[in-house]
């Protein structure tokens, strides 16, 4: 049996096991909209932990982090800092969001904006920003899946074909299983991811250099500036590091799926305990960095840094082990993709299409339309994945630049009674506009600062300024003072 057959068989075996486990998880639950999206709000600490970890640890942390460690160096440290800081922020803001969700039976992020600000159009606008920000994130996962199959097949399967197969699998998985299936597959995915990350991070430096310390010493001799900022880049210095950490940590729980998974928890306490434990999981990414640094010393120059980890694994280990690592990588792409597609499709139909165009739509019809949206969004992301050449980390930063613009509207909405829908709308509109102009004219970073962070600053100032200007009588939407009493 050829090496590629062995590796691919192991990968498809792992993906197949995960998919079957996911389908079985739905056997005892009637799949109405509430079950499909928030699993009846019945998840305890362990399942919420797995669901949230499943959302955060994606192809970005598996292939993207090692790719940036290989090609950029020092600036890659922002990943460790932003995830941990994001959990500190979540410790404070998720319990009050959960309280509102329980009281008003909220299912999505847009529901939160609708209830807090009493404005359907603002909720629809937030929904649109969320869905658009998801597209580069799903594109990232599909690109990662393509890389995995391409390398595991020893380049005999092209990346476009690999991505197409992956897209069909992911769409089918979400279409049938819903959120409960995704949470249970996270169990398998997380176990494999942890095992693969630690094994690779320890074994590769040991194999080639006799340990991590010796590997870093060799790296400092070969590339003295690689491990400090700006590393192998010209413009990703300290200002970029600080502003990007602030932008992405504010945005970590502004992704509609992260926000929505808050509502699946059994209590606000579950979310706090979760926030306490999650930073420890972040440390596994340091092992992934080590694989990227080792690749820089061992491999010939690669045209695409995102290929570094798997190319090194293929060079160093037998095909069956490449299959296990590839299988873990495939699940880290499939589980988050499934969550993103599930959330984006529900959001679009429930908070944009139904309220604005078809208010008489029943929940069963919403559920069916959401499933059709899964297919449409998958195809859109697949098209971009095939025809785009951006790195995995760049795709994620583009998504963050959009979704972080919702942060002022959420946080000021929770803690400042005067915040009004006009201010939030103006702030998000300006923030997203500035971020889009800077990103699409290749001005990231801009004068050394994160473009998304500059947009977030303008956004926050506008929200505060407009809200402060409005007279107190106009400051609230429907019943907002009651809502604020609930969360205090």
């Amino acid at each position: 049996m050829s090496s590629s057959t062995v590796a691919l068989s192991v990968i498809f075996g792992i993906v197949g096991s995960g998919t079957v486990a996911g389908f079985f998880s739905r056997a005892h639950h009637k799949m109405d909209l509430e079950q499909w999206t928030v699993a009846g709000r019945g998840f305890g600490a362990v399942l919420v932990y797995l669901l949230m970890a499943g959302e955060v640890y994606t192809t970005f942390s598996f292939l993207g982090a090692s790719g940036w460690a290989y090609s950029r160096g020092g600036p890659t440290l922002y990943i460790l800092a932003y995830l941990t800081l994001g959990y500190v922020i979540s410790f404070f803001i998720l319990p009050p969001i959960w309280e509102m969700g329980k009281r008003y039976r909220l299912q999505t992020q847009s529901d939160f904006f609708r209830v807090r600000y009493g404005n359907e159009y603002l909720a629809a606008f937030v929904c649109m920003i969320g869905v658009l920000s998801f597209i580069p994130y799903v594109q990232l996962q599909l690109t990662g899946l393509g890389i995995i199959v391409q390398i595991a097949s020893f380049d005999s399967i092209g990346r476009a074909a690999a991505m197409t197969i992956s897209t069909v699998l992911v769409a089918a998985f979400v279409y049938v299983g819903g959120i409960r299936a995704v949470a249970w597959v996270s169990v398998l995915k997380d176990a494999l991811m942890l095992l693969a990350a630690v094994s690779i991070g320890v074994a590769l430096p040991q194999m080639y250099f006799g340990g991590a310390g010796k590997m870093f010493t060799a790296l400092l001799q070969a590339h003295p500036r690689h491990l400090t900022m700006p590393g192998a880049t010209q413009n990703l210095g300290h200002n970029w590091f600080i502003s990007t950490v602030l932008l992405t940590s504010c945005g970590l729980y502004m992704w509609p799926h992260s926000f929505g998974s808050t509502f699946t928890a059994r209590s606000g306490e579950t979310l706090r305990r979760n926030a306490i434990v999650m930073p420890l999981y972040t440390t596994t990414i340091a092992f992934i960095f080590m694989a990227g640094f080792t690749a820089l010393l061992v491999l010939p120059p690669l045209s695409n840094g995102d290929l570094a980890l798997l190319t090194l694994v293929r060079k160093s280990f037998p095909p069956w082990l490449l299959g296990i690592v590839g299988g873990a990588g495939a699940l880290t792409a499939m589980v988050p993709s499934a969550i993103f597609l599930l959330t984006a499709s529900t959001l679009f139909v429930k908070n944009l299409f139904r309220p604005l165009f078809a208010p008489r739509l029943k929940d069963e019809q919403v559920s069916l339309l959401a499933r059709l949206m899964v297919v449409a969004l998958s195809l859109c992301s697949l098209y971009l994945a095939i025809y785009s050449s951006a790195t995995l980390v760049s795709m994620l930063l583009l998504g963050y630049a959009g979704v972080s613009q919702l942060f002022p509207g959420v946080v000021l909405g929770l803690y400042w009674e005067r915040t009004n829908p006009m201010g939030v709308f103006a702030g998000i509109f300006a923030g997203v506009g500035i971020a889009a102009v800077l990103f699409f004219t290749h001005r990231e970073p801009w004068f050394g600062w994160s473009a998304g962070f500059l947009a977030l600053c303008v956004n926050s100032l506008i929200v505060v300024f407009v809200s402060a200007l409005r007279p107190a009588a106009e400051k609230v939407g429907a019943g907002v003072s009651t809502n604020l009493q609930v969360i205090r």
Partner: protein
Amino acid sequence: LWDRVYPIVLGLPFNLFWLLSWIFLTPVCMWAAYRIEGQERQ
């Protein structure tokens, strides 16, 4: 501020070691805050 690789601590460049130390300290501090706030205990 301490973006430097030397001294190498536990086999890690100093900036990576410092960041990982901060990450390990974070859950400890959050847990302490959680307990102190609970001791609300009406």
